Each structure stands twice: as structure tokens, then as C-alpha cells.
């Protein structure tokens, strides 16, 4: 399915950005520790780390969703007939998609306010707006992936969460 491949590509790209964010965060803290030992700490390193963290979290959220990484209670699954379980899957996916649309939308609005007020981090004044837009983009990818999953469930093509294939990362 072309749409699924396209969304998986976006998920992979997002995960790569998240992974690079983690590598960058690690590098910054390590550089700060070593430089401090030589009397030259990296000024404003917490600001950079904070922004790396938002990239890690929201960069990897699409991968988490796609690989069924969200914790759910599977205890009662066997008690319900398959058709009812499919309805529950539909509800869970639709609710998730709606929530991520809301997060994306509100973060987009927050980004406009941040840009208008020129909001930035405490020391280095790294602008917050681009990172809020990044959350919007990541939320968009999650929502897109979930909508696709909804269609797959409706068409009876969805795999169980545990059997979902991880996109190539």
C-alpha cells in the first residue's frame, strides 16, 4: 500500500531526527562536563539540552505509535469476540488520532504566540517556536499514521498491535 509506505517513510525520518537529537543531547552534556573540567563550561548547555529533549521525545513518538509501543491493558482482550475487539481498536485509534490532532493544533497556535512575543530559552535565547512547530509536525505524522490504521482496521487489513511490522529505521 503506497500510503502506508509513504507514512512509514515519514515515521522513519522522524525517528532519525529524534535519534540525532539524542546523539546531540549526549554530545552537549559530555562536552560541558569535559570543558568544565578544564575551566571552560559550555554556556547555556541546559538550553540546548532542553531543545534536544523535545526533539527526542516528539521525534520518536511516531515510531512508538507505529510499533505499538504505547502501553495498553490487554487483560480483557480474550474475553471479547473478535468483532468487538475490532470496534475497540477503532475507538482507541480514533481517540488517539483526535488527541494528536488537538496537540498539533494547540502547539501550532502556541508557536504563533511564541514567534509574536519572541519567546526563547533563558540563556541562549533559542527561539521556542520552531520546536513547537516540530511538535505539530510529529503530531501530524502520528495522526496520519493512526488515520491510516483506522482505514486498515475498517478494511480488515490491520495487524494486531503486537504483530505490527516495524518500519525500517
Amino acid at each position, binding site marked *: 500500500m503506497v500510503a502506508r509506505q509513504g507514512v512509514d517513510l515519514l515515521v522513519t525520518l522522524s525517528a532519525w531526527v529524534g535519534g540525532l537529537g539524542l546523539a546531540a543531547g549526549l554530545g552537549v552534556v*559530555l562536552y560541558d562536563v569535559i570543558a568544565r573540567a578544564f575551566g571552560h563550561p559550555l554556556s547555556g548547555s541546559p538550553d540546548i539540552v532542553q531543545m534536544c529533549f523535545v526533539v527526542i521525545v516528539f521525534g520518536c513518538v511516531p515510531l512508538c505509535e507505529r510499533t505499538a509501543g504505547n502501553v495498553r491493558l490487554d487483560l480483557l482482550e480474550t474475553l471479547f469476540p473478535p468483532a468487538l475487539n475490532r470496534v475497540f481498536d477503532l475507538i482507541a485509534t480514533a481517540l488517539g488520532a483526535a488527541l494528536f490532532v488537538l496537540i498539533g493544533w494547540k502547539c501550532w497556535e502556541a508557536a504563533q504566540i511564541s514567534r509574536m512575543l519572541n519567546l526563547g530559552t533563558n540563556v541562549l535565547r533559542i527561539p521556542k517556536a520552531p520546536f513547537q512547530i516540530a511538535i505539530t509536525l510529529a503530531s501530524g505524522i502520528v495522526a496520519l499514521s493512526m488515520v491510516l490504521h483506522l482505514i486498515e482496521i475498517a478494511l480488515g487489513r490491520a495487524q494486531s498491535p503486537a504483530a505490527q511490522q516495524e518500519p525500517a529505521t
Partner: protein
Amino acid sequence: MTPAMIGGLGILALFVLMAIRVPIAFAMLAVGLAGTAALNGLNPALSMLATESFTVATSYELIVVPLFILMGNVATQAGMSSSLYDAAYAWIGRLRGGLASATIVGCAGFAALSGSSIASALTMGKVSIGEMDRFGYSPRLSTGVVAAGGTLGILIPPSTGFVLYAILTQQSIGRLFLAGVVPGILLALLFVGTVTLLCTIFPSWGPRGPRTNWTEKARATLGALPILAIILVSIGGIYTGIFSPIESSAVGAGLAIVLGFALRRLTLAGLWRAILGSGRTTATVMLILISAYILNPFISLTGVPHVVGEWLAGVTAGPITTLVLILLCYLVLGCFLEGLSMIVLTMPILYPIVIGLGFDPIWYGVIIVIVLEMAMISPPVGVNVFIVRSIAPRVPLAEIFLGVLPFWVAMILLVGILILFPALATYLPDRMMQWGFKCCLRKHRSF
């Protein structure tokens, strides 16, 4: 409708959503959002969604979560965990049930590298279950020991359980890490004692392993030195005050990467897998935490914690009975809820009550993390048991749960010991923090 009734309905809706397999983070987000909208209006609720998502995802202190997870993942990719098991095996594998005890020691060592209980169970399980099978260990013991030993991952620092507790309750991560050391070692010893007791009662469960000579012992110990070096530098750095927990997590992860490459055990592809795996686990944990930050204001607004507190005060005779009742609630909840979600869900209601009764928040943090550990092996949703099942698919789930049972009792015993002797958890952080404070004063006076 009163706010408390809305709160009750919200909690009911939360459980219904979880029962129909809505991911726990989504269920908490939806209820928190809808509940706050019902009490305060739609706009404040929606604004909270953006504010809290961004605020939690930019928390400087929380960077320890991906970095400590990365440290453990790199150690796994570099095969360092098997060296740890080999060393423990060389020293105590000859004893009755020695391989099972070596697994516990290996889990405790790996726990000092990784903040995740699942990672500990998965990593040590892959290394040890096959070996125990080879020596004719009872599958009940071999799988039970890995599932229970893995839970040490969240008690022995670094621990994601402590980090989340610290963030939710505004406590010091460093103090909580220190508080987990003695109970963690004590629990590992209790587990080893449990293995010995079981193998004394049922000798066929854990036959003796092969005898190893001193050269083999020395070689195995030498092989575990990289792991011991990482633990010494990163975790020792926190205890001696050289590093903050954040710096320690980065130094530990950095050291694991450097040693992995230096020993030619880590490849670039392996490192990238470790990074992506850490990112994915971080996203899972952080989504639950963000949801908690949306749900908690709603719970506070409803006044439910106050109502529950008053009810508990009415039905119980004193602080200890109230605490025991709360712990019993956790044990029951642990049978149905995943550990971290259970803590995040209940903390806004139960934490103010416990602290109001005069209990030390650091000590309570240790108790909570032990309860969380118990939830990870409690039937029917004990996540560690499922992890072990994925490694040993031929062992029936019921057999693993039976194998875990004696270790579950050992955990109850530890909770009892900590209630009787709270200083086991609080002495080290109090002492070390005092020492650190005096060092600071001395440094300032010398200027």
C-alpha cells in the same frame, strides 16, 4: 453535579477506556482534557494540552531518562551484560542453584547500568535461561528468577521509576537514587536467599554447575571490568558529588560507547539501534508523563484526594494502618495496571495523604518503586513475565507466574523490613547529602 462526583465519573471513564484497550496515555489524556473542560471550560483545557506537552518535553532533568536507557542499550548491543553474567557464574555457579543466583547478581549489576526493568529481564534472560536449561534447572525456577531479577532494574539506581517519582513529587533525583542503593542490594540478597532456600527444599530444581578454576574466575572477572568501570564512574560519580545525575547519565552512556568501540564489541549499526531503541522507550515513558500532567490538575480540581484522605482517616486506626491499606490497594491495582502507569495515575491522590501522615517522601519513593516492581511480576499482567515468556516460549505462562511467586513474597518481606527500619532507605541520602553540603561549605570558605 459536584466536582468530586465529576472526579469519580472521570476515574470510572478512565478505567472503562483502559479496559477497552485504549493506550493508557491516551485514556489519561482524554479524561484529563474532558474533565478539566467540564470544570474549567474548553479553552483552558485545550491550552493546557500545548503548555504541558511542551513543558514536560523540555524538562532539563528528564534528559536522564533517554541517557540512562541509552547506557543500558549500548551495554546490551556491545554484549557487556553477558560478561557480567559470566563473572557471577564463574564465582557462584558451582553452588546449588548457583546459576540462578548468578542470574540475580547479573541482574543487579545490569540494574546499575540500566534504569529499565524490562531491559534487565530481556538482557539477562537471553544470556542465562539457555545456560540454566543446559544444566537441567527447573523451568519454573529459571524463568521466575529472570522475571524477578529483572525488576531490580528499577530499584537499583539509575532508575526510571525514581526519576518519574521525583518529577511527579518534586523530590531530588540524587537523593532517591541514593535511597535505592541499600534496599536494592538487600532485595538482591533476599532473592539469592530465596533461590538457596528453594534449591535446598527441591534439590532437583537447581543442580550444581561445573567447577571453575582460579584462572577462569580471573578471566571472567577481567571480562566484566568494562561494566564495573562504567558503574563506578557514572553511579559512583553521583554518590561522590562529582557529577549531577544528568552529567552522570551522559558520562555513563559516553563511556559505554567508547568502551564498546575500543573493545570492538560495538558497531555503528549497533549504536544506531541502541539510540533509536532509547528514543522509542523515552517516547513511551514521556507520553505517559505528559498525560499525567494533563490528568493531575483535573484530579486536584475535583478534590478527590481530599475525599479519599478523609475516608482513609475514618476507616483506619493510625498512619501505619493507612499506609498498609494504601500498599494493599497498590498490590491489587498492580494485578491490572502496568507499573509506571499505576504510579502516575495514583500519585496525585495518594501522595498528599501519605505525606500528610508524616512519612518521609524519599522513603515513600523507595516503597513505591518496590510496589512498582511487584506489579511487574504480578499475574495476570506482569510485564516482566511476558518478556521472559518471549525468551522461553516453551514454558507455560502459569509456570512462570508460579516461579515468580517466592520472589514476590521476598519483596513483601523487604517492604516490611523498610517499614520497620526506614533508615535503611533514608540513612545513605541523609549522610551523603550532609557530607556533600559540608564539602560545599568548605570550598566556599576557602575562597
